[in-house]
């Protein structure tokens, strides 16, 4: 029911996001959802009032590449995903190394 | 000068009544719609525990055995959900805020004697009705059995036995 949703594979993620950036879209939010055992990562982009979503599904333990090389302002979202869901994100420009949220249990939403 | 501007406001404020209320000394203004705390009219409550089920924070406990209705005012979020869902309209939202306390106290409301009698009377009547219904059902079953036996003599067909089903219904 999400409008403008595109579901892609993890392998094509960075290329897809580079493409989106060249089209002039900006990152609005990144979030993870636990569906059964797997995690869905939803990347939302905005251009003026248009919204576009890209979704990937990853299994537990899979490392996800960071998009902060393309969108530097996305570092908070990626740190949040790491801290709440325990998904490893490789190569964040400001990596808080699990220290963004001071939670009592590591990865409480996983 | 802009600087003089605020000086004007400040001078005005010096001679005006204070904008605040001296609350504990005088009464505070309360609006008609203010949600302060939940109170229960124990003359009307039937301990149906709908409020307990509806409360999002679990602040209400209904004890049917002890015939009490308990609220923990420090867990209550004044959302009005119990008041809106009360079938007997015994719950009401009062305008005064919960009084501060040193401990997270509980407020226990005991059923009024009148209401206790009323509920006891109702329970008795319900029990009577149930007993009467049971009696009637037994009679009917016996009659059926007798009839079935009479039928069996002529047709040798097994009778339909729905006695158990009827019993279940009664308990529920």
């Amino acid at each position: 029911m999400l409008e403008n949703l595109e579901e892609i594979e993890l392998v094509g993620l960075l290329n897809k996001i580079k493409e989106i950036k060249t089209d002039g879209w900006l990152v609005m939010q990144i979030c993870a959802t636990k569906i059964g055992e797997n995690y869905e990562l939803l990347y939302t982009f905005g251009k003026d009032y248009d919204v576009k979503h890209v979704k990937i599904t990853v299994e537990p333990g899979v490392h996800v590449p960071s998009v902060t090389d393309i969108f530097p302002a996305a570092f908070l979202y990626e740190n949040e995903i790491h801290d709440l869901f325990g998904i490893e994100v490789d190569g964040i420009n400001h990596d808080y190394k699990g220290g963004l949220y001071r939670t009592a249990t590591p990865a409480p939403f996983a | 000068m802009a600087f003089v501007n605020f000086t004007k406001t400040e001078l005005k404020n010096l001679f005006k009544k204070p904008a605040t209320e001296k609350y504990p000394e005088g009464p505070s203004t309360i609006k008609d719609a203010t949600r302060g705390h939940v109170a229960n009219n124990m003359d009307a409550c039937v301990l149906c525990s709908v409020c307990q089920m509806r409360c999002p924070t679990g602040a209400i406990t209904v004890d049917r055995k002890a015939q009490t209705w308990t609220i923990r005012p420090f867990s209550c979020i004044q959302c009005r959900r119990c008041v809106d869902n009360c079938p007997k309209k015994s719950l009401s939202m009062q305008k005064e805020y919960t009084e501060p306390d040193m401990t997270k106290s509980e407020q226990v409301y005991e059923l009024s004697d009148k209401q206790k009698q009323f509920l006891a009377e109702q329970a008795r009547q319900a029990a009577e009705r149930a007993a009467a219904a049971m009696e009637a059902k037994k009679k009917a079953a016996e009659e059926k059995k007798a009839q079935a036996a009479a039928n069996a003599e002529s047709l040798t067909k097994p009778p339909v036995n729905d006695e158990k089903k009827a019993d279940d219904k009664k308990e529920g």
Partner: protein
Amino acid sequence: MASKRSVIPFGPQHPVLPEPIHIDLVTEDEKVVEAIPSIGFVHRGLEHLVTKKDFGEMVYVAERICGICSFGHGYGYVNAIEHIMDIHPTDRARYVRTLLFELSRMHSHILWLGLMADAFGFESLFMETWKYREKVLDMLEAATGGRVIFSIIRIGGLRKDVPDDVLKGFLPELDNIVEGIKACEKSFLSDPAVLSRLKGVGYLSKEDAINLSCEGPMLRASGVAHDNRTRGYAAYDDVDFEIITSDEGDSYGRCYVRIQEIYQSADIIRQCIEKMPQEGIYVPIKGFPNGEYMTIIEQPRGGACYYVHASGKKFIERMRVRTPTFANIPALAKTLQGCDVADVPILVVTIDPCISCTER
């Protein structure tokens, strides 16, 4: 002589900060060369409660994400669920929601003006603005019964109607507030002492504001006309308003935009009261939500995204709230670069940080 770099920890406890944010300021003499923000002191895991409370009860939790934009959070969640379940609230519900939303915006902006006055050390101006904030709270209390948490919104409409005579009573109150803020505006926008603290402080160019995905008054103060209210949720399609922008890009511009938005909100409230339809307030709902939706609304602090993923059960799989402060923190780090240490409190306040809602 080469200057030495030193790190000054700022926050989470600081007199100017309304909420706990920690910033490591890398300074060279009096200049900040880099700022590393960190949050996470008040993470409560409210989003996770969506898997433990049924979807109707979750409205109360959503409202408690933040105390200032509480109505907006409740509305964002309810709006997402209503889209998934294909519910269309009645006209009166839409108008009352818009009215309460704008009252919250007035409340938030006036509160911010007070905090700003406090940040540059103008205590009596702070008290003066909060006097009017109190009046807005009184109006909210008269309408909903709560001063901070309203508990009036529910999936399908409203839980309680706001009587027409109460709404009519708002009109003189609004005039009062606008008049009071107009008197304060002179101090904010033309007092030479205040101007020296605001003008040119924390400049953010239009390009940076866009590239850092800024939101709300922060973005509009840099000259970008972007306001999510034009998406037309609630009754914003039916009321007239213009997006307020400023080309200044500095703290003065943000102050200007927020003050103008107070007047604009008062105007939208007047329009709502005038056009208020007479209809029911609630549409009954059936079944459980199934599907996913993201709704984007304009909170007082900027655009907020509410993502709901439901799977046809009583409990929803995931609710995600992206609050405007979350999007504005990278911009804060950017504006802090190159500013004086003495300006840091003002710059932190200009993004109108709401850390509790950021961390949820």
